């Protein structure tokens, strides 16, 4: 259980005020840059001292202003993966990895066993041992940084925008590694990001931050589907998040079918066992609307539903909420479609009207799907 309730004032204009609690294996702090996410994790790590409040992890009080407790950073047992890796440039790769391994004493009550060989294997860093630290690429540095933090056997791992300084190719790679770290080592992660893709893939709970304050703290699906939070979440890239599971693979066309409350989705084949849970993000701009079931179309996914609320802020683009019919009558699954306002007027869409939501199978890529074991 992570419990945070802190306040910190920087000057008359800026005050960070964060209160949340979560028991999830991955909690994301999500919000625009400057919203105070990094300050919160720095306070959790003990690198920044909050003015008031308390921070507790699994019942251990790390900070409590009323009881005058402020455990030094080095005693908190909290690993930290920074945006830029922050490897020690004067130490070898191996020395970097072992820097925090002093905690390997049995007295430490941190995470369960995290064997060196297993970490090296999982992160694929065996071949980097002999390299000089400054000569590593961005992705390699981040792998070492994750390994270094893991080997200190933290009770909690903080990650502050760990993909921000990587190119898009490396991002997917590291994200996959983080998923495996979560699944194989059972380390609790607090993940800071302003990327909706990363957060919806990884996180079980999301702490939504805006302007130094926590706006909401809830399950990931809820946060990204809640209409009242759209001003904070939709601004990035509108869409809906759907929990589904793989039901079959089509080996001939290499497609995978996923089932969720609101129907079925066909996506390019993914290497995941049948039955595996997956979280799929459907971006609003990938959804097309039709008033009758279309024929002769290349589009694979046609979902039946009714028009819900229509957001039109007077621009060229409108957003239409589609309530999916699905097999179980009131499934409550909702999609978001981004269409031109002109099309909206021509189709004369009104709330309550039956509608078909069309999504190309290839709109789903690896980046819009998050897997969990």
């Amino acid at each position, binding site marked *: 259980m992570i419990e945070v309730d802190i306040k910190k004032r920087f000057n008359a204009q800026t005050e960070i005020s964060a209160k949340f609690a979560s028991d999830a294996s991955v909690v994301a702090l999500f919000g625009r840059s400057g919203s105070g996410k990094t300050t919160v994790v720095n306070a959790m790590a003990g690198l920044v001292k909050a003015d008031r409040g308390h921070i507790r992890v699994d019942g251990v009080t790390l900070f409590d202003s009323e009881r005058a407790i402020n455990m030094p950073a080095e005693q908190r047992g909290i690993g930290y993966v920074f945006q830029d890796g922050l490897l020690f440039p004067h130490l070898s790769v191996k020395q970097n990895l072992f820097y925090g391994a002093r905690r390997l004493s049995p007295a430490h009550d941190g995470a369960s066993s995290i064997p060196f060989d297993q970490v090296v294997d999982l992160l694929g860093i065996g071949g980097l041992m002999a390299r000089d630290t400054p000569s590593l690429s961005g992705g390699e540095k981040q792998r070492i940084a994750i390994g270094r*933090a893991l080997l200190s056997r933290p009770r909690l791992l903080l990650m502050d925008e760990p993909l921000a300084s990587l190119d898009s190719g490396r991002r997917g790679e590291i994200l996959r590694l983080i998923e495996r770290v979560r699944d194989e080592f059972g380390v609790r992660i607090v993940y800071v990001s302003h990327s909706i893709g990363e957060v919806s893939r990884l996180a079980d709970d999301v702490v939504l931050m805006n302007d130094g304050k926590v706006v909401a703290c809830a399950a990931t699906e809820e946060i990204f589907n809640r209409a009242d939070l759209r001003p904070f979440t939709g601004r990035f890239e509108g869409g809906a998040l759907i929990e589904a599971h793989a039901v079959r693979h089509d080996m001939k066309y290499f497609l995978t079918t996923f089932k969720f409350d609101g129907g079925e989705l066909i996506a390019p084949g993914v290497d995941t066992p049948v039955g595996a849970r997956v979280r799929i993000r459907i971006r609003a701009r990938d959804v097309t609307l039709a008033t009758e079931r279309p024929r002769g179309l290349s589009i694979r996914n046609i979902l039946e539903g009714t028009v819900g609320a229509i957001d039109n802020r007077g621009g060229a683009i409108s957003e239409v909420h589609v309530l999916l019919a699905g097999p179980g009558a009131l499934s409550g699954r909702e999609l978001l479609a981004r269409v031109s306002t002109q099309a909206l007027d021509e189709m004369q869409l009104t709330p309550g009207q039956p509608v078909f939501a069309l999504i190309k199978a290839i709109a789903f890529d690896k980046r819009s799907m998050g897997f969990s074991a």
Partner: protein
Amino acid sequence: MLSKEEVEIVVLSLKVAFASVIFSVPLAVACAWVLARCSFPGKTLFDALVHLPLVLPPVVIGYFLLVMFGKNGWIGGALDAWFGVTFAFRWTGAALAAGVMGFPLMVRAIRLAIEAVPVRLEWAARTLGASRWRVFFTVTLPLAIPGLAVGVLLAFARSLGEFGATITFVSNIPGETQTLPLAIYNLTQSPGADAAILKLCIVSIVLSVAALAASEWVNRVARRRQSA
């Protein structure tokens, strides 16, 4: 070549310079770290105090040293009585004067080097369980080595050239406190010593260039280790 007396002068100068630098380094590193990484009330005053030898006339420093570290000075008297350490009119006094005069130069260089070490690297070390001491000795100091080398060189060169504070504090005693600059000064007071003066001047230049080369070498080795 050099006469026996001249060799003695060079050896004494080197002894004074090395002693002054070796004893200054730990204190200078501590002061530099405090100035670079801490903030506390009175920091400006502390900073000014460290810089005092750089801005005051050396003779004034020499006089202060005489008052404080002389046989009857508050500190000098106590050191003499308790530990039998004497500074007045000894080579140790020359080393003290040289150390004090070179101190601000050393602190400045080390402070800049410590300030150039990203604080976040120290943060990373602390989240890995390293105490403040361990962070300092395994992260901050190793990364500040090039700056430390520069500071040591500056202080060493300054020690070799120290004149005003030394002559005021420990006088100009051949074989005890007469370093290179003091010997050269002595020779200028007697007529027809041009050749001897030139010889000592060349020795001074050779020593300074050697010190510069040594510090450059340390610097290069440290940088190669960090960014190869």
